[in-house]
């Protein structure tokens, strides 16, 4: 029953949560290398504050299997000595963690003001049109995932794209999107502009 005379109780549309638990997936365990990295990271914090390492632990999971599954959250909880709910609490808050598989290249298009002023909305449109996907989706070949993100902190290089979490493409123009995607597919990170302040060529 409703406590307000004009309000229907619990309308289905209003109360339905779109939130879904992560799929449990296969049993998860760190590779020995990742276990060693985790064990080293724990030493950065006081012994009784193992939970501080949770973001690092989750990145390790994501690098190892591409996304963070239910089983891997339980694994991280065991490693840290907290509950799986506490791990999920963190995973669901931060935008850089994926609970579902993503494409080989995640195209993070910055959509915030400085980038938008220089055509970021057009970039998203062109990528979407070229790949036939909307933001949040992965193309059928599993190569690209398109994501709109908020300010990436490189506004002088607008519009900016972050590819996965290590590649940067600066000052992309809408008319170059097609060529850019082909190039990225063919040559990987080598196709990217990288950082414009990088005056030296790293080997």
């Amino acid at each position, binding site marked *: 029953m409703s406590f307000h005379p004009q309000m229907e109780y619990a309308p289905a549309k209003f109360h339905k949560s779109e939130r879904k638990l992560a799929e449990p997936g296969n049993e998860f365990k760190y590779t020995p290398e990742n276990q060693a990295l985790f064990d080293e990271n724990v030493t*950065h914090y*006081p012994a009784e*504050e193992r*939970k*501080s*390492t*949770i*973001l*690092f632990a*989750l*990145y390790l999971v994501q690098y190892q299997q591409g996304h963070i599954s239910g089983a891997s959250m339980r694994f991280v909880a065991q490693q*840290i000595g907290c509950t799986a709910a*506490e791990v999920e*609490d*963190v995973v669901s*808050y*931060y*935008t*850089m*963690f994926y609970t579902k598989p993503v494409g080989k290249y995640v195209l*993070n298009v910055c*959509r*915030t*003001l*400085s980038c*938008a*002023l*220089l*055509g970021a*909305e*057009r970039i*998203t*449109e062109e990528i979407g049109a070229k790949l036939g996907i909307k933001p949040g989706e992965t193309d059928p070949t599993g190569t690209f995932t398109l994501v709109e*993100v*908020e*300010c*990436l*902190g*490189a*506004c*002088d*290089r*607008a519009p900016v794209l*972050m590819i996965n*979490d*290590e590649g*940067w493409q600066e000052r992309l123009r809408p008319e170059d999107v097609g060529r850019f995607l082909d190039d990225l597919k063919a040559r990987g990170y080598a196709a990217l502009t990288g*950082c414009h*302040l990088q*005056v*030296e060529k790293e080997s």
Partner: protein
Amino acid sequence: MDYQPVLTQFVREPRAYTLDSYVKNARGYEGLRKALTLKPNDIIEQVKASGLRGRGGAGFPTGLKWQFVLKDTPKPKYIACNADESEPGTFKDHVLMERNPHLLIEGCAIGCYAIGAKIAYIYIRGEFLHVQKHLEAAIEEAYRAGYLGKNILGSGFDCDVYVHRGAGAYEAGEETALIESLEGKRAQPRIKPPFPAVAGLYQCPTAVNNVETLCNVPLIVLNGPEWFAALGPEKNGGPKLFCISGHVKRPGVYEASMQTTLRELIFGDQYAQGMQDGHGFKAIIPGGSSVPILLDEHLDTPASFDHIQKAGSLLGSAGLIVMNDTVCMVWLAMNLLHFYRHESCGKCTPCREGGDWLYKLLQRIERGEGQMKDIDLLFGVSNNIVGKTLCAFGDAAATPVLTTLKWFRNEFEAHIREGRCTLPADWRARQAMLAGAH
């Protein structure tokens, strides 16, 4: 005025980020060497005398912040360096850490020595992995050279610096939310008091300082507080990094005195060199997206904390977003509310719900489906957010709405009257334009 950069003097030199370059070119770690011969309290006094104000946004005096750090306690103390740089329009710490990381490391070490801490955590945003790699390599160099670790330079002082990577959350830039995130939780702010200086990281006394703030510390110790204060107007001393983005010819990070006017920064030859493509200047957000807009009539204001505040805005993080006459102000407010709605941590109801309402209202007006009473509603919702949340995020979220309504109310009314966006620019989404939406 002739201004010699000190924070970014060498950033465009090849391998500027290496210890070699830092020691050879920039008198690297001489500040630390000198600091270790002084009493910790003397360093705090020097920083106070210099008038250094926090570069993260609030402009709070750094010396005072350090003085407030509880000294008489058996608990360990910490420095948490805020390298979460997420304020839209801000990218100065990005450059400092990428090209001059040793300056930050030296600042962390001196800061730790001054407040009696042994550990500094640099909380860097997750998107800056490429920056983090440089920073971690630099930290390793510093350990090997004996500038970090045990018994630094034979002084008996121990200091460790660790990089802690965030994972995508604007709110983590708020100091108590940053601490929560360091503790391995959601980045949500705490109720203050107690302030971090009393009960911060792991409930221990903690100083939370911005990257650029800590980078100034070695310079103060090395060159003296008088030198520092003389670099800018009264109470706004020292070098300052300005991040200029938007419709200017040469966007970038520029180091200048806070005596420099906004007009010089936008139009000056050594700075952003004026507007792109022959368009006229319309408006500027002078301190990152959270501060009020200023107009052409304000451009002769010196870009200092106090002057900009007097002009009706805030210097904030010194992210200058410059807009030309093609920018629709309803669209601008909508773009920024999309940001605030997305980034609200969800802890306080006015911000969590209000941001979403504001976005939807703006979307409605921008699409041409708004009514005149929606303008009152925008004020109503905004005023129910401002001052009613735990952290400054709420005020920041309402600001784009209140400031665009203050200066450009006519644009809102035109949208409503004509039932369409009255200023659609070619750099905005095509499809939405055609459909009359967005």
